[in-house]
């Protein structure tokens, strides 16, 4: 019998450029490749990213419209599983990349943000009705209404961080002041890790324990820095085009750990 997951994953970070969106996209494809049904929603309204990859899929309605209560989430989602020949189903929900829409979202008041949180919380029932295993939120970096709303409405909040001191210190503060207050058990994914020498499994474990002690949270994976990943960016999907690449292999391990979360 198929295990029902029905979970919302939010992917956030303190600062921009941590690789959050690339991780979100590739995780979504890895889940769908394995036969799971996934939806990825662009909630980064200040710098929408997903439309770069799915430009031809831009629909009449966007995630902005969903939060503005102009449409249902079903109106926003596009099924791209056929296009990429995926075993499971993958739906994408794009944010409006127009300057006008970005300006509109920046100027929302706190009452609108309260309603937006309620709209996101209502997606829990959508997961079931659409037969989804996961909804993945790709959010804006930092402490913004949209990203905290996403974290507050998620079951598996993931914070992506690089290992530089400022990022780690800020991530630790975010965990303490936001995620703990929301009673969320947060998972940290360290990205762009630079190692001077190849590490053994025990070497990786020592590093993971060290960061877990600092962050007081579970580190769900460490992904080394790969120049070719940065170079390719959103030109193609690593999970599909380069399945043997160590970036994908590391993410597969992260996906397995996510799958094992009760």
């Amino acid at each position, binding site marked *: 019998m198929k295990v029902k997951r029905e979970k919302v994953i939010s992917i956030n970070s303190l600062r921009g450029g941590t690789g959050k969106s690339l991780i979100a996209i590739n995780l979504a494809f890895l889940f769908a490749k394995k036969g799971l049904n996934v939806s990825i929603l662009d909630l980064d309204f200040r710098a929408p990213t997903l439309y770069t990859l799915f430009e031809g899929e831009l629909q009449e309605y966007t995630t902005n419209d969903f939060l503005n209560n102009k449409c249902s989430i079903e109106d926003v989602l596009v099924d791209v599983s056929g296009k990429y020949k995926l075993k499971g189903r993958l739906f994408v929900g794009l944010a409006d990349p127009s300057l006008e829409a970005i300006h509109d979202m920046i100027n929302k008041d*706190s*009452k609108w*943000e*309260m309603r937006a*949180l*309620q709209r996101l*919380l209502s997606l829990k029932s959508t997961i079931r009705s659409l037969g989804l295993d996961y909804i993945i939120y790709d959010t804006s970096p930092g402490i913004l*209404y949209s990203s*905290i*709303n996403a974290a*507050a409405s998620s079951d598996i909040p993931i914070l992506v961080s690089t290992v530089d001191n400022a990022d780690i210190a800020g991530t630790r503060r975010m965990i303490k*002041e*936001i995620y703990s*207050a*929301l*009673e969320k058990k947060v998972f940290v994914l360290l990205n762009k890790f630079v190692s001077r020498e190849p590490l053994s499994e025990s070497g990786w474990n020592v590093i993971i324990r060290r960061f877990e002690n600092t962050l007081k949270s579970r580190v769900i994976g460490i992904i080394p820095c790969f120049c070719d990943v940065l170079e390719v960016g959103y030109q193609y999907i690593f999970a599909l085009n380069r399945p043997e690449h160590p970036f994908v292999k590391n993410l597969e391990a992260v996906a397995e750990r996510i799958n094992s979360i009760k």
Partner: protein
Amino acid sequence: MNLRIDENQVAFSIVSELKSINEKLDRIIDVLERLSGSYTLMERRNLKFGRVLDVLTLLSLPDNLRKTAMAMCKLNEATADQIAEETGRKRAVESSLLNQLARMGYLRKKRVGRKVYFYLK
């Protein structure tokens, strides 16, 4: 005649009596608050103009209120019983916290029949 007491029926009857007592207590608290004029100037202002329960406000609330407020965000409109079911805490605790949030101006209250509903503005 040997009468056999159906334990389930007794339990059901006790629960329904307790619910009725809870509803009456809610009404008494409501009336007492109105009669005693126990609202401070700030509370009266909050009740009149209302305050918004957005996520940053949620973060600024004390832990016990935040849990109740979060459940209200999820349900939008609910009785103390429904919130207690959501938070896993006792109904009496939730009733007190919901009333506190209402006095702070984050929630409004309305009576539908014998039940008190709290809702977000």
